[in-house]
């Protein structure tokens, strides 16, 4: 990974590319890379869909090696959804393949005139950019089907669906999984709209003829990876719960804890949660000939994904994730897994974030467009997104826009981005992360749910404000660093609980680069990323007043605990004081 591919989509006479040495960005991966380039090169006041914005795609620093779990790819830009800096990462095959091709980043710059749609093909022999208007208006599944016939079986695809072409604010970038299904999405923050604005429909990455990236010290690297994998296997979360039930194992936990946002954050408990729980979902998947255990990329040992079939055994979608099952399920009063799976498929196919889309449907229900629990109605609404009707475009721009258009006050967003499946009143630690993250409401930016509710990585009372700021700060720093390695964030559970597994990761990074790595190096990396992101957001016009939850979380107590969010504004302002 010693080079950067820069593609000027707005060059005179058509898109031009150049390959340059990685230079000052050497050693950076994932979020560290996307943030470094965006914060240095993108004007913070630019229009996110204009020629001045850039879309940076970067594999993690360990991607493309034999390190387990290293298949996350980061995409960065100025977000059209939040107006701030964005890093959205996904699994799938793209990170490993791009890293083996030797690129530390692809930077899409400029914006072409006219309506032509482009695809970019990259293999060991070079880069080919071509117009392909036959791809216009294709949703992700038929798009991949069409492209697959033209490229090697080893190719990985990064694509936008119809939502990206329409530049909707919740548009995602899809990454194909090992079976070439467009199921793993850089979902958050509208990165797909930026790719659409640059008129790039598909990036095809083919690593035929290339090998794994070699570590500087192969023996130490192998040994560290072995200890790392051992640690993941022996930890109950990554070794048992996630493989058996997937992320949706959380539905019952969060619901029992009274922290499951139901009917657009009106209550913390959904009476039919058990029907859409991970336990029920896994059993149904196996019964219908799908899979309850599946890896989103090669080299994954956790295998938290799965395959969801319909009652006739026909593929519907990948196993819907916890956040999706919540956003389209309990958040909308919907208790039917088949409806939720259909919505998950539609989101993936049109290429929109399942969280912001589910939250938008919840807000539409709040506005009275359809009743709570109306599954058929929810499917109709999401189909509007694919059709590009005015209503569909509104919903495809996420919860905030939907709330504004329909005059709804209860809109669960921070910096324009929808919250995830944890109520910030009954899990105050995640409220701190939602409010202060550089990314808008983003549970993964500092997953305080671990120590608050799951009792992993610490133990803090979720219903009290004490200690939440410090916890969120430490997790936001650690997460920024993990997001730079290409490692799946779920390694954080064993990492925080088992010092020897954390050491194994440090040793693995060290052996790869031929250096000694310490915990302090990881912290320093995380802090430097957050500092750049905060600085970009400040220059983009964000102040401390943007680091706040919507006021209804401070005014409306949520049952069953009947609490409001209690962390003070003064304390929220201390998150980035270190």
């Amino acid at each position, binding site marked *: 990974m010693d080079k950067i591919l820069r593609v000027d989509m707005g060059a005179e006479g058509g898109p031009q590319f150049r390959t340059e040495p990685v230079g000052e960005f050497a050693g950076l991966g994932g979020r560290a890379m996307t943030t470094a380039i965006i914060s240095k090169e993108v004007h913070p006041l630019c229009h996110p869909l204009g020629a001045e914005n850039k879309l940076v795609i970067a594999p993690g620093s360990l991607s493309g090696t034999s390190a387990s779990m290293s298949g996350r790819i980061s995409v960065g830009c100025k977000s059209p959804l939040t107006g701030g800096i964005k890093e959205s990462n996904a699994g799938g095959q793209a990170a490993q393949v791009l890293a083996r091709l030797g690129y530390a980043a692809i930077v899409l710059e400029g914006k072409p005139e006219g309506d032509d749609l482009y695809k970019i093909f990259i293999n060991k022999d070079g880069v080919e950019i071509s117009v392909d208007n036959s791809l216009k208006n294709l949703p992700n599944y038929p798009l991949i089907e069409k492209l697959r016939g033209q490229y090697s079986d080893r190719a990985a695809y990064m694509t936008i669906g119809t939502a990206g072409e329409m530049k909707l604010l919740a548009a995602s970038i899809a990454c194909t999984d090992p079976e070439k299904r467009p199921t793993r999405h850089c979902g958050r923050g509208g990165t797909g709209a930026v790719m659409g604005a640059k008129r790039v429909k598909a990036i095809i990455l083919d690593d035929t003829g290339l090998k794994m990236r070699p570590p500087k010290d192969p023996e130490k690297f192998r040994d560290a990876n072995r200890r790392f994998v051992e640690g993941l296997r022996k*930890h*109950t*979360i*990554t070794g*048992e*719960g*996630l493989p*058996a*039930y*997937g*992320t*949706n*194992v*959380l539905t*019952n*936990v969060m619901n*029992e*804890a*009274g922290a499951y946002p139901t009917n657009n954050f009106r209550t913390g*408990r959904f009476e039919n949660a*058990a029907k859409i729980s*991970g*336990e029920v979902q896994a059993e149904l998947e196996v019964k219908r000939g799908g899979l309850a255990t599946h890896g989103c990329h090669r080299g994954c040992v956790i295998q*938290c994904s799965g395959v969801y079939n319909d009652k006739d055994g026909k593929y519907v979608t990948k196993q819907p*994730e*916890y*956040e999706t099952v919540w956003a389209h399920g309990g958040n909308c009063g919907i208790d039917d897994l088949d409806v939720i799976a259909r919505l998950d498929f539609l989101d993936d196919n049109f290429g929109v974030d399942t969280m912001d889309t589910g939250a938008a449907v919840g807000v539409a229900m709040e506005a009275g467009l359809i009743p709570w629990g109306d599954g058929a109605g929810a499917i109709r609404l999401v189909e509007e997104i694919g059709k590009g009707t005015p209503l569909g475009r509104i919903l495809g721009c996420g919860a905030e826009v939907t709330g504004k258009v329909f005059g709804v006050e209860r809109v669960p967003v921070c910096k324009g981005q929808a919250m*995830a*499946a944890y109520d910030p009143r009954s899990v105050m630690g995640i409220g701190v992360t939602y409010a202060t993250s550089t990314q808008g409401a983003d*549970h*993964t930016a500092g*997953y305080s*749910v*671990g120590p608050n*509710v*799951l*009792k*992993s990585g610490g133990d803090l*009372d*979720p*219903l009290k404000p004490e200690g939440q700021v410090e916890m969120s700060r430490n997790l936001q720093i650690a997460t920024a660093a993990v997001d730079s390695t290409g490692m799946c964030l*779920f390694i954080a*559970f064993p990492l925080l609980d088992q010092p020897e597994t954390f050491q194994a990761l440090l040793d693995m990074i060290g052996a790869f680069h031929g250096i000694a790595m310490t915990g302090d190096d990881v912290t320093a990396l995380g802090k430097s990323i957050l500092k750049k992101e905060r600085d970009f957001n400040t220059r983009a016009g964000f102040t401390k007043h943007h680091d706040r939850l919507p006021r209804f979380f401070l005014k409306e107590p949520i049952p*069953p*605990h009947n609490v409001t969010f209690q962390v003070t504004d003064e304390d929220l302002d201390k998150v980035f004081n270190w």
Partner: protein
Amino acid sequence: MRITVKLFATFRKGRFDAEVREVPPGTTVSQIVEEVDLPEREIGIVLVNSRHAILSRVLADGDTLAIFPLVGGG
């Protein structure tokens, strides 16, 4: 007194999802854990009436006890 015991994820295997049980006053979470033969070191989360509780917690009539192995996701 009567309490409701709910089990989740791997703890359901060979046991039950939810059961109402008659127990003597003064019964602790620990005693229930022993009764239903759960490996104590595998217990991740204990909730009594939706609030986190410790194993020595004394249960009251009408309580709902939810026991999970260590789970995570998100």
